[in-house]
């Protein structure tokens, strides 16, 4: 089964003022077809964690083990970025097909597969447009489409809806769940939005401020498939406030609001 184990990983980087620890002693596992949400205050190293999982950075302590673990068959991970993750010089179609291009899929086939996916999510009319002609929300959908079309077993999403207005965000959350329901990959979803973490995740990992550590791992009391209104249920509200109490201290500190 596809999955990974983070074994007390840490990450620190050096600056002029010495070494700064971004992550400390982070351990968790993920496997199968689940969505793991990671929520934490801004600057807690969530994005660093995701880059470590993507292999763009190497942990300075501990290790990440993937299964299957062989060098060649280690599961590929597709990143979905916060913003600006799509290439402005490629059309929507070629952006979506970019991951397939890297895998050596011929131009005709990858365009066909990308077009097929765009049809499914209703973006096919924009296939030949460039990203600057699209709204921010649509650009994010293109980034998500690229990750799904590449068909990597693990998805890493870095606050993909962070820059969107509330309505757009709600619709895209729903769409993401819908696509995921059909494709069933292992996904790590990073967000600073507690409700989003609960709505999307099977588990929520709550992180502290810098250096980022795991404060608690919470099982989300919701079944799948889920409805948009799910977070209104009382047991979910309880989880929400539970997480909020974890994060409140850090949020106040960052804003200099006394407790």
């Amino acid at each position, binding site marked *: 089964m596809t999955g990974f184990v983070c074994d007390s990983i840490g990450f620190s980087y050096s600056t002029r003022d010495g070494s700064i620890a971004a992550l400390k002693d982070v351990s968790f596992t993920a496997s199968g077809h689940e969505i793991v949400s990671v929520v934490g205050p801004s600057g807690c190293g969530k994005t660093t964690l995701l880059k470590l999982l993507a292999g763009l950075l190497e942990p300075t302590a501990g290790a990440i083990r993937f299964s299957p673990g062989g060098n060649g068959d280690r599961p590929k991970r597709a990143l979905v970025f916060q913003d600006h993750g799509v*290439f*402005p010089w490629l059309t929507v179609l070629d952006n979506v097909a970019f991951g397939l291009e890297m*895998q050596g899929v011929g131009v005709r086939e990858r365009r066909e597969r990308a077009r097929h996916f765009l049809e499914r999510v209703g973006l096919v009319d924009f296939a030949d447009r460039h990203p600057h002609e699209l709204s921010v929300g649509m650009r994010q959908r293109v980034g998500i489409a690229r990750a799904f079309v*590449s068909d990597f077993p693990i998805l890493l999403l870095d606050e993909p809806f962070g820059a969107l207005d509330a309505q757009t965000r709600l619709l895209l959350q729903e769409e993401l769940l819908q696509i995921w329901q059909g494709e069933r990959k292992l996904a790590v979803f990073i967000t600073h939005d507690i409700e989003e973490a609960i709505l999307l995740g099977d588990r929520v990992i709550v992180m502290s401020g810098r250096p980022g550590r795991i404060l608690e791992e919470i099982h989300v009391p919701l079944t799948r498939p889920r409805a948009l209104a799910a977070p209104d249920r009382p047991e979910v509200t309880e989880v929400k406030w539970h997480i909020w109490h974890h994060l409140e201290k850090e949020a106040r500190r960052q804003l200099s609001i006394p407790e």
Partner: protein
Amino acid sequence: MAHLAPPRERGATPVVDPRVRLAAHREAVPWWVNPVVIVLALTLWETLVRIGVLQALYFPPPTAVGRRLFELFADGTYLDHGRTTLYRMAFGLVVGASLGFFLGVAMGRSQPLRRIVDPIISALYPIPKIAILPLVMIYLGIGEASKLFVIVIGAFFPMLISTLTGVVTIPSIYFEVAANYGSGPLHLLRRVILPASLPTVLGGFRIALNSVIHITIAVEIVSAVTGLGSLVWLSWETLDVERLYATLTVIAVLGVVTTYGVNRLSRKLVPWRT
């Protein structure tokens, strides 16, 4: 205030903030204004010469310049010299811009190379290129080679600096996306580095073109017996002011046409920046 305006009716013109409308009006100068202004200015010039306010020897009337222009085209003078000048410009631009581009990409991607070469570039860049012509002639002789060398240098620097800037300022997220999907170095160059830096690179190419026009004419004035620049100098030496004006007109047209061509090309190559 736009939001206080009455609701728009179907088919009615859009309600626009009056300030926006003003700005739009200010820009709407009809196309024929420019040619009319030019014709008026030329007519004024012609008249002032005809009634004797300006001396024809120093300010040849536009009709005389035009006649001269026609003659020099008809007898092949401009075609010969123009071809020589164009060839020098094209050679300098192609060779200099290519070298500048490749070194720019290499420096943009390699911090050590940048650290080593950057001070040298910074020291050489501000020297007016025409000033190194004597030195170059010591090594390459007074022939064509030293002229071409200086023109190449003229295109090289702006292209190098723009390409370097273009590559260094590519947002790191594009490299991360490419790395995440497993891009190799060549693919990265073709699919990310080239297109991402292209707008800045084309800006550099425009500056290189401009620089090449300047330096080619300057080199020809200083040391050539062929080319439009040499004609300018020859006209001064013989006090042939009509030919001076005519030749400058040819140079101006050459500059306008090539710049227009490069601008058109830019828009075609960078459709995502419109």
